[in-house]
């Protein structure tokens, strides 16, 4: 549904109501067309959502708008001006600002220092030597944050503030640079429901203040809640632009994936068996010897999905790392199938029956420079048949095994088992990890953020795999920041706050609101 008639007519936009016009943008990378003839207009003062699966071309399109890539074909117009030989610096000058998914902040600088970085107010010492005028900076930032109702303390260090505040700092960074076209890349991925509500409110207020907002997101609910219009990308093409008020989330989802999606989970009642994992008073210290997990106890039975809900950084990743042996247990005991594994090494735990889908796929779950076949055998390479007793690798066994998993789990790559994993899309990298871990056939499976960054189709797929493992009688520990996910999958939910499990209850006894309150540490059980 390319609006090509409009693109050809070469409108100059005399009224100046268009913030951004992209005309017939095509961007190719070796092997793929990332953006295929995309024409798009974004009006001044609207909230425009850009929706699409992983690899649909959203980030590339935004990078073009931000001047990071030059398109092979097509034109970029900003506020009625055609941009040529465009750079990020030029984009910033035209008022385009971006809040990246992964914040780009200097940890040991203050909020104010981070905001002005690169554009510091300067005072002259002895009439010549330029110095950063910190006093003026702090005042300026205080004013700015009041004006946009984004209250922060300019003197606080980044390392001392939480994720939501960091995001405010990123937003202030754009505002300080007087950006009026603001791009948000997946801004809610790491926030609690309450924080999400607050952020959406901020975005609305930015629009009231005359800013144009472009929101990149997977989350249909948010788009529905805040956006005016929504452009949907599928495989590099813009398939539709919808007025959000006149469409349903269901329609948006199916346009995005190119087929009907059912994110309704068909979850049969739990058939729980014996206890698979028993954790008693687990304490874990971080590198600075500070307790990050403070006496956590729980049990997981066969056929049960036990979910730990919580805001990022409250100790949930450390629990998973301690259970798998990646982090040392300071005190407490861990039993797997009634056998104590508190002091057992990583490999031995793997062999005894723990599968682990880690949160950070690229630094833990995969060796990116290894090919797919090597990665799929990452936990078995040292055993027969991959390795001879003398320590020689049997390449053909790696290939055969890879072929089998690729077939079963539909892992897509350009060269099958021989593809370097770095070249796989995020979704397929995750598929590879899940395939490997499920194929271990372990009685305990630990999933940490299994659907982070995945699109609706892949989420649906992952969820059904997790449920299938539950049916197979595996004990499953699910650590997730996504409440939707926790609510959809869990049989039992424990909410973690500041290293403690505040409450553990059957999932059906919880409301979403209630979990949210525990996540913020507002409610405490007696």
């Amino acid at each position: 549904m390319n609006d090509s008639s409009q693109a050809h007519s070469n409108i100059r936009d005399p009224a100046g109501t268009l913030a951004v016009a992209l005309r017939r943008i095509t961007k190719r990378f070796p092997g793929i067309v990332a953006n295929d003839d995309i024409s798009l207009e974004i009006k001044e003062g609207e909230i425009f959502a850009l929706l699409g699966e992983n690899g649909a071309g959203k980030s590339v399109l935004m990078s073009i708008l931000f001047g990071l890539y030059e398109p092979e074909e097509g034109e970029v117009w900003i506020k009625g001006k055609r941009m040529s030989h465009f750079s990020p610096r030029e984009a910033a000058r035209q008022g385009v600002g971006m809040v990246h998914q992964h914040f780009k902040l200097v940890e040991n600088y203050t909020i104010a220092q981070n905001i002005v970085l690169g554009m510091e107010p300067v005072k002259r010492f002895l009439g010549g030597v330029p110095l950063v005028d910190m006093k003026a900076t702090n005042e300026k930032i205080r004013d700015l944050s009041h004006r946009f109702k984004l209250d922060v303390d300019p003197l606080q260090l980044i390392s001392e503030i939480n994720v939501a505040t960091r995001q405010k700092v990123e937003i202030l960074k754009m505002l300080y640079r007087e950006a009026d076209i603001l791009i948000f890349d997946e801004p809610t991925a790491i926030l609690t429901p309450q924080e999400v509500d607050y952020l959406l409110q901020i975005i609305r207020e930015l629009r009231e203040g005359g800013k144009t907002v472009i929101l990149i997101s997977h989350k249909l609910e948010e788009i529905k809640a805040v956006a005016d219009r929504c452009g949907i990308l599928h495989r590099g093409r813009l398939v539709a632009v919808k007025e959000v008020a006149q469409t349903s989330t269901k329609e948006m989802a199916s346009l995005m994936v190119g087929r009907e999606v059912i994110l309704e989970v068909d979850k049969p009642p739990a058939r729980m068996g014996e206890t698979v994992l028993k954790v008693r008073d687990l304490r874990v210290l971080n590198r600075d010897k500070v307790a990050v997990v403070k006496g956590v106890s729980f049990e997981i039975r066969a056929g049960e999905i036990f979910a730990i809900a919580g805001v990022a950084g409250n100790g949930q990743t450390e629990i998973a790392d301690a259970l798998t042996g990646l982090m040392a247990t300071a005190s407490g005991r861990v039993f797997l199938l009634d056998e104590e594994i508190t002091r057992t090494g990583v490999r031995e735990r793997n062999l005894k029956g723990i599968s682990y889908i880690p949160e950070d796929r690229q630094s833990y779950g995969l060796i990116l420079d290894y090919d797919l076949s090597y990665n799929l055998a990452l936990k078995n390479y040292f055993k027969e048949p991959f390795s001879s007793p003398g320590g020689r690798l049997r390449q053909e066994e790696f290939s055969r095994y890879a072929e089998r998993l690729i077939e079963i789990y539909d892992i897509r790559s350009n060269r099958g088992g021989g593809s370097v994993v770095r070249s796989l899309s995020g979704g397929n990298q995750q598929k590879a990890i899940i395939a490997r871990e499920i194929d271990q056939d372990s009685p305990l499976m630990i999933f940490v953020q299994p659907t982070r960054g995945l699109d609706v189709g892949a989420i649906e797929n992952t969820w059904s795999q997790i449920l299938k493992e539950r049916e197979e009688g595996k004990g499953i520990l699910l650590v997730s920041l996504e409440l939707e996910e926790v609510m959809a999958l869990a049989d039992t939910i424990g909410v973690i706050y500041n290293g403690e499990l505040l409450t553990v209850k059957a999932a059906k006894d919880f409301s979403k609101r209630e979990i949210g309150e525990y996540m913020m540490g507002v409610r405490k059980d007696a």
Partner: protein
Amino acid sequence: MPSFKKSRPGRFLLHRLGNEKWQWISIPLLSVVLAVLTGSGVILLMGKSPVDTYIGILQGAGMLPKANYAGGTNMLTDFMSFLDAMAPMLLAALGVTVAFKAGLFNIGISGQMLFGGFLATILVGYSDLGGLVAKPLVLLIAGASGALVGGFIGLMKYRYNINEVVSSIMVNYILAYFISFFIKTHYINPVSRQSEYINAAASLTFKGVALGGVKVNVPLGILLALMAALVVHYLINKTRLGYEIKAVGANRKGAGYAGIPIGRTMVTAMMISGGLGGLAGATYYLGYFASIQPGVLSDLGFNAIATSLLGNNSPLGVILSSILITILDKGATFMSSKVGVVKEISGVITSLILLFSAMGAYFRYLIAKKQEDVKSENREEMGE
């Protein structure tokens, strides 16, 4: 550069370079060609002939015949001497390569060479053992002592998180001064100001062998070095240990997640690396030379880093880069006396080769992009 893309040779070149199957060799070759061309520019600026310079270097390294030879020597003499010099370079570069695979930077090869060479010299070099016992013993002692130093650096890294670059440089100097002290107090030859020459039985190079009417030095080291390259290639690419070393090198966290014992793997890799360094020391101090200059760390141990990089950190690639770097190094002196270009030009060309090889990934990207362009042009020409 549309004209480039349209031109026949341009397309031919693009096609050749674009073949990914051969890029492991075609890209380094491209770097060497570019370095030689740029080096020619430098030589021209000095008012000398690049062709003469390069010929002079090749002659000096025994690759091309010289106009005349001193009595009892010919091109074979030079060539064998070149092989003699290449053996320690290849071994040292392999040492660097193994450490690189484990994600470690073994800058201490020089120290490991010296330690291995020194212990082999005093334990075997001055003994009365016969050649059949002495030579294997030299290799054993040098290899083991080098491995010990390498392993120590690996252990410091893993156990106390001491950066291997820092510790290996410090170990280099500690060894150099200790060994200097012992040589000066016990083993010094007052005339040469070096350690006493070792007995011929312990030497890994047969000196002054009559061969085809001339005298040549026959290095055993080069056989050892080539065998070592094959063994390292097999070890890195075909074994469980190689899988673990590369995994630790590519992603330490990921390796830990997979249950690979990181510390043990790092220490093992550093022991192999240091062992190769020790062997390099044996072929250097008890082969190419027959004595040790006190208080000096060999340049070779540092140049080996460059050689390893140029060889793309692959054991077989390192064979080729050792040949190249040794030619430049070995041929420079003769070239300088014959052509009159300062011999440091070799260093310039070596650095240029490194500079261009460091750009390998960029070349690859550029070629892929150009190919894409040509393809889309072709599509357009065919009227889609």
